[in-house]
């Protein structure tokens, strides 16, 4: 849950990129880092990796100030996807304000996606969060590859759940900002309800999302 320090006029939001191993969570953050303007965000912090696999987590921080002077930090984390790092996943998932589930579109990864989603449900419950309430978006990554689950199938399966679904290729850089924008959008709604970001701090949703997803100028 959100960290809010009224005295310091500071708020820290936590967004978590979850998903099976090698589904492209870190790549998503790398792309966001590359695509978004340097202003108002920190550097991508990639903690130790081994053979390109996240062991701990990655962190991409954003910073903005509401018209009221409220300082808002948005920290975007990835979790390690490998089954063995479940304790780390749980630790990172603590107090999350929103979750982006990055699924691997490849047909061969169906089971892994399913197991990881189940793991997300379980871990959310363990850290005291409810999957029905937490802002959640799903991204089907690696759409640039062959042998992937057709989009129609995905829509058919996930449509009824009402969870926003995005097609993306983090490698090619598309669908990444859309996923992030929607997650920011949903998270804003949740936090606005509780802290009145618009009413008390003069920060409307559009500005919030736009500030976070402000693209770097084309060079």
């Amino acid at each position, binding site marked *: *849950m959100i*960290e809010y320090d009224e005295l310091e006029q*500071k708020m*820290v939001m936590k967004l978590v990129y979850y998903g099976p191993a090698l589904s492209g969570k870190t790549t998503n953050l790398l792309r966001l880092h590359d695509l978004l303007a340097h202003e*108002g*965000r*920190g*550097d991508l*912090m990639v*903690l*130790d990796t081994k053979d390109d696999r996240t062991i*701990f*987590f990655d*962190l991409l*921080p*954003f*910073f903005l100030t509401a018209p009221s002077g409220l*300082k808002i*930090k948005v*920290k975007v*984390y990835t979790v390690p996807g490998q089954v063995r790092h479940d*304790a*780390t996943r*749980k*630790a*990172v998932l*603590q*107090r999350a304000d929103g979750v982006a589930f990055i699924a691997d579109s490849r047909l061969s990864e169906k089971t892994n996606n399913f197991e990881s989603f189940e793991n997300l449900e379980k871990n959310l419950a*363990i*850290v*005291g*969060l*409810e999957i029905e309430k937490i802002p959640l978006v799903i991204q089907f990554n690696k759409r640039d590859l062959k042998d992937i689950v057709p989009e129609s199938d995905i829509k058919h399966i996930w449509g009824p759940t009402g969870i926003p679904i995005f097609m993306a290729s983090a490698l090619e850089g598309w669908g990444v900002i859309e996923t992030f924008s929607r997650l920011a959008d949903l998270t804003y709604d949740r936090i606005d309800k509780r802290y009145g970001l618009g009413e008390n701090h003069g920060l409307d949703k559009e500005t919030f999302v736009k500030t976070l997803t402000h693209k770097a100028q084309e060079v």
Partner: protein
Amino acid sequence: MEKGQNNPGNIEYVIGSEKTLKEIISEAEVIPLLKSAVRAGASKAMVINPDGKIIWTYSNHIKDRTVSETLTLPLYLEGEIVGNVVIKGDSKERDYLKGLSGMLLDALNIIINNNLKRMLTTEIHTTVVNRSYEELVETNTRLKISEARYRELAQNLEKKVQERTEELKHVYARLLQQEKMASVGQLAAGVAHEINNPMGFITSNINTFGKYISKLKEMIEFYRTINHDSSKAEKLYERLKIDFIMNDIPHLIRQSIDGAERVKKIVSDLKGFSHIDDACETMIDINREIDRTISVLAHEIPEDAGIIRDYHELPEFICNPALICQVFLNIILNAIQTKREGLKLTISTVFEDGNIRIRFSDNGPGITEDLRKRVFEPFFTTKDVGKGTGLGLTVAYEIITAYGGTIDVESLPGEGATFVIRLPLKRTQKMIHDTGYRIKNNQNNKPFIVHYGDI
């Protein structure tokens, strides 16, 4: 954390909590950099708060140095401006100072980033290790509890097995005895049947024989009256003691008939005792069943033994008579076997407080206290090998408890033993009793003494 607090064993931790600049980078790391900047030509190098307060500073001690230029560069931490790097120097060296401040900022940023990375790594590592440790401790505790439970279960299992074994032993003993009694009963019934037939014609023949004899006697008398002067015949009559024979014959016949009657009674008692005809529960009169048992045991009871029956009227009791008789048989037999000479056995029955009480008191050697506890144990016997099975009293105990009753033994060594049986009347039986029950035997309720020899 709304729900998490209700989650027992769930420790609270947050990765990447907010840190101030001073928490991330130390004076020991900053000062050398500021020193280098000053050495490289700046007159003063500082790191200040966003609100202008100096955090760290280092300046040249040479006073005459011109300070005409101040360069300020923002210092970011996770996208947030957390301070400024300030370089002061000569405005003539502005470009140089600019480069210098840029370098200083980059150096600080690298240290900050590396430190932050290291801190985050340590944080997550510690968290995971702590969590794993907690989980291990939890698992260990759970394992210990479950181990204790299994150990307890194993111990109980042994006890349970022992209990069941004991139970089985009892049931087995009872079955064994019942089977034995059943086959004895069958044999008795068979023998009784076989004896009944010849006894029938023996009795009938003796009666006929009696009639024939009286006819012959009449005939002999007639011959004597018409031939009374035949001294030869009279001499023979005298010599053969026909007078005596004539008088003795009715006695002999009477005795034979009595004997036959007795055989008949014994056979019928035997049949009755074995209850070969009624195997299921019926209404019985306990007093009568005790009598029956004594009759069957007649041959075992020494001539000089005295059996005192102190019977009181009893309501009828619903039970399997074969089983109840077996209880009486075992107890009486026990008494007989403990004292071969001068046995005095008092059997008293009474009905009080809804219970039928039967006491068997003998004047045998009695039972010592430690043996008293064991007399009902299966296969426990004080008799010589081959004489007793050690089952008699066990079976008695089993049967009485099966009817919801109790059987106890009272004894003082040297003063005989008393077995006390209490049989509770069941509800339905009580009703029969309350509405007036039938007494079949011993209606005068007075105790009477019977010496076996008198029967």
